[in-house]
């Protein structure tokens, strides 16, 4: 079986890290797109997922453009891989160009816990709840909008916490992005903000 990690430019230099189960990395080139692969050794478990992530992040450091592949893409033969890549070649090429020179940052925010309004009066309770929801929306906008202006693309990644987003940021915009985030954090000590990155552009690998 062949394990697929990412796509990069055909001339990409492979990073000096091992793949899943310690297997050496290789390239499978289709036209001007290279698939970074290894033989699929070992169990499909958390260690394998982390090894997959290590390869992708090592590529981010060495390659100008990298498209991470979701963990779990395995192919029985070179022929099967080639057919799957050929079917998407144009789209992969365009997407590589879209993320070229960019990294991804993830930002999560938890607004302060709202005081539970009094339930003495139904109307007062609803008005207080509504005001609390509006305050939370306003604070999300104060965080998100300035960051969007520092990014090539941004997507909301709901699921955990009150606000989560991913930002595709050009290398030359990284300072501006970090300064903008730092200014928000300094102005809002009441909220918890978590920023992780730089990541390879996982969230932007597929067109929305």
């Amino acid at each position: 079986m062949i394990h697929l990690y990412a796509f990069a430019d055909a001339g990409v230099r492979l990073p000096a890290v091992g793949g899943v189960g310690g297997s050496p990395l290789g390239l499978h080139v289709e036209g001007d797109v290279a698939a970074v692969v290894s033989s699929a050794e070992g169990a499909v478990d958390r260690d394998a997922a982390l090894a997959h992530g290590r390869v992708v992040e090592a590529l981010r450091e060495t390659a100008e453009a990298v498209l991470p592949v979701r963990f779990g893409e395995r192919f029985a033969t070179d022929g099967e891989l080639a057919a799957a890549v050929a079917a998407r070649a144009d789209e992969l090429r365009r997407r590589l160009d879209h993320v070229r020179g960019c990294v991804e940052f993830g930002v999560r925010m938890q607004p302060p816990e709202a005081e539970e309004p009094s339930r003495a009066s139904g109307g007062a309770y609803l008005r207080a709840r509504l005001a609390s929801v509006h305050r939370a929306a306003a604070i999300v906008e104060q965080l998100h909008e300035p960051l969007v202006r520092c990014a090539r693309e941004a997507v909301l990644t709901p699921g955990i916490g009150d606000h989560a987003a991913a930002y595709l940021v050009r290398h030359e915009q990284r300072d501006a992005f970090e300064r903008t985030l730092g200014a928000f954090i300094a102005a809002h000590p009441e909220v918890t903000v978590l920023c992780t990155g730089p990541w390879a552009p996982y969230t932007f690998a597929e067109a929305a």
Partner: protein
Amino acid sequence: MSILERQPLQHDVTLLELVDRVLNKGVVLNGDITLSVAGVDLVYVGLRVLLSSVGTLDRLQQEAA
């Protein structure tokens, strides 16, 4: 210190965010592939706990200051 390193739990959160990306994001060629990876549910539970913990930690630091 960079703002990206200001949280003491940064390492744990980074690990959870990495697993989230690796398992849920990226190019999908075979949409029908479903893999079950041990511990995936724990990623979400764990991240919720960490977010809460960081908030608690911040409050404790402010009270101590």
